[in-house]
């Protein structure tokens, strides 16, 4: 199946799934780092939403603010130097209440109840994301004990069950093993088991397969898809791999320079991209079966520094379509078609 066919198939299933409510809304989020040499505007006005039980793919070049955006959601930004300076992160909680995560104290009970229990996160480096001194079972049961009213033995049993769910063979033996005794792929499975152990409604996966071999990568993605159905979780999949996005995502947010520049259902991103940067991204990766133009066209030019003060569109310098207005005013991020938003003067 080609990339675009996959996207088409996923779009088709989306039509039937009905329930169209959101679980997480990020509005006008700005997260800056105040360094001695200047202010790094890592996230500079991000708007994006995550649908319940849906997968949001987040793509963009390295350094565009993908990780910082979703670390902000978990309030994992180190402060100082980092600070959320503006915006809202609205979480629709399991109990029906809506909470603005930005307003919570990072040390508060309320935030700790959200971390792990409602939003869980896995990271790029499976080699270092687990504590080398604790057996993996204990690292999973630690989270279970924290959020669920369970005895220690019951929590350990839950850990073992989770290892089984992520298809680790001999879970009864593996629970007492240490991270260094497991391969990279197995550690990432353990991280997934840990993240899902308390049934979170959102799983944020920050480049979960980037550090893994291609075959292992495919297995991990299959696993995530399988578990998403079982656990009813929404997934935020941060990646720079468009192939992964086309296989996994329901919606895609394309980020550039700390902003979301295009947001649309996965089919539209691949078939009717609006933003020249999205088009550039699509042209710069090989796509199987794309006949009309098999030449790879890299996006030229340099990403401006996030410390620069930019007037107009941040992509103007690299944009083949740049017009006069692009240099003068920043395009607004807005919906141009139902469900399809972009920040570009071409569509105004």
């Amino acid at each position, binding site marked *: 199946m080609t990339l675009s066919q996959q996207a088409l198939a996923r779009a088709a299933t989306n039509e039937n799934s009905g329930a169209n409510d959101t679980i997480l809304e990020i509005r006008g989020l700005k997260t800056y780092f105040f360094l001695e040499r200047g202010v790094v505007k890592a996230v500079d006005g991000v708007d994006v939403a995550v649908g319940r039980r849906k997968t949001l793919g987040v793509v963009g070049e390295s350094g565009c603010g993908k990780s910082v955006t979703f670390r902000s959601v*978990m309030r*994992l930004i180190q402060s100082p130097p980092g600070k959320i300076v503006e915006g809202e992160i609205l979480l629709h909680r399991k109990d029906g209440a809506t909470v603005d995560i930005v307003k919570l104290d990072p*040390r508060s009970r309320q935030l*700790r*109840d*959200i*971390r*792990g*229990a409602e939003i*869980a*996160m896995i*990271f790029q*480096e499976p080699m*270092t*994301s*687990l*504590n*080398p*001194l*604790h*057996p993996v079972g204990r*690292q999973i049961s*630690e*989270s279970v004990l*924290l*959020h669920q009213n369970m005895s220690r033995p019951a929590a350990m049993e839950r850990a073992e069950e989770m290892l089984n769910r992520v298809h680790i063979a001999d879970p009864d033996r593996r629970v007492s093993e*240490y991270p*260094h*005794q497991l391969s990279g792929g197995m550690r990432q499975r353990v*991280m997934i088991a*840990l993240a899902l152990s308390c049934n979170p409604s959102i799983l944020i996966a920050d480049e979960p397969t980037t550090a893994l071999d291609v075959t292992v990568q495919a297995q991990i993605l299959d696993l995530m898809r399988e578990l998403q159905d079982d656990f009813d979780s929404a997934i935020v999949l941060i990646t720079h791999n468009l192939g992964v996005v086309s296989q996994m995502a329901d919606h895609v947010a394309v980020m550039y320079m700390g902003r979301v520049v295009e947001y649309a259902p996965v089919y539209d991103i691949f078939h009717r991209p609006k933003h020249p940067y999205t088009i550039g991204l699509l042209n710069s990766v090989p796509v199987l079966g794309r006949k009309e133009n098999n030449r790879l066209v890299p996006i030229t030019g340099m990403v401006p520094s996030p410390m620069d003060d930019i007037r107009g569109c941040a992509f103007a310098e690299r944009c083949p379509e740049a017009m006069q207005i692009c240099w003068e005013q920043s395009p607004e991020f807005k919906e141009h078609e139902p469900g399809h938003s972009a920040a570009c003067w071409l569509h105004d």
Partner: protein
Amino acid sequence: MIGYIARRVGVSIAVVLGIALVSFIVIQLPPGDYADGYKSFLIEQGGATESEAEAQAELFRQRYGLDKPLPLQFLVWIRDMVTKGSFGFSFAYKRDVGELIAERFPRTLLLAVLAHLTSTVVGIVVGILVAPRQYSLADNLAAFAAFVLSALPRFWIALAIMFFLVFTLEQEHVTAFHSPQFVVVPWAFGSLEEISRTWAKLLDLLQHIWPVVVIAGLGGVARNMRVMRGNMLDELNAQYVTTARSKGLTEGQVMRRHAVPNALHPIIMYQGTSLPYMLQGELQASIVMGLPTIGTLLLTSLRNEDIYISASCLLIYGVLLVAGNLIADIALVVLDPRVRFS
């Protein structure tokens, strides 16, 4: 794991033998021997002629085996140590070196271990506290104090403390382990009265030895603090700490369960190597404070070429270092799964 420990013990024994050889050779390096000193003593104080004195010195050499070739002297020394537990004979004290050292060893060890514990505990605790507050006022103050403490010469601090004790606090006895009235009090716990006197003696002991403990420990506090702070900063930036936070643990739990234990490991490993600093500090502080420890014994014996004392003291220091390293290695094997299972 057992195999690893056995290997480490074997290597340690070999290292101790090497240290014994080197200490023996090193103290032979200065020209002359104890008999030469004895000879000039006879000429100057006893009015003996050059040849009479030389004959006496020669007799002395024969009696204590100083005329034998060095390798033989060394072998005899080691043999007696292993078979008879004898460390040789002190010419100056006219006593068995083993006895002399046995008298001083427990106190020396007490001082060194107290200094070591103080420096480790204080250093680590301060390191843990300042790391999450990098570049804060507390962090900078601690760094400043650490620099000053490790830069000031120990003998100078010892003199300053002594000056302060004697002239400001008017403490009467500074260069001893006890005030005279406590020297003969036994460490006994039979009756209530005995216990209270033992307690008073203990307090008196602490009053006399704290300067040495503090002085010997200060440099270590600075070192441990810097190392612990650095380790903590590394660990706090590690991915698994973020994982721990993202589980919903409190910051205190993240520290206690995850960051601190990982940061402690390099410190444990390095405890073996920080023991020399404690011994060196104990040595300097004891010499200036005039406490009868192995340090002062070594200094006197070096002055009058009382070779068996010098060699035995050096050997003891060597054994302590090797033992410290061995204990640190074993502790790490027991604590760290990555070492334990490989």
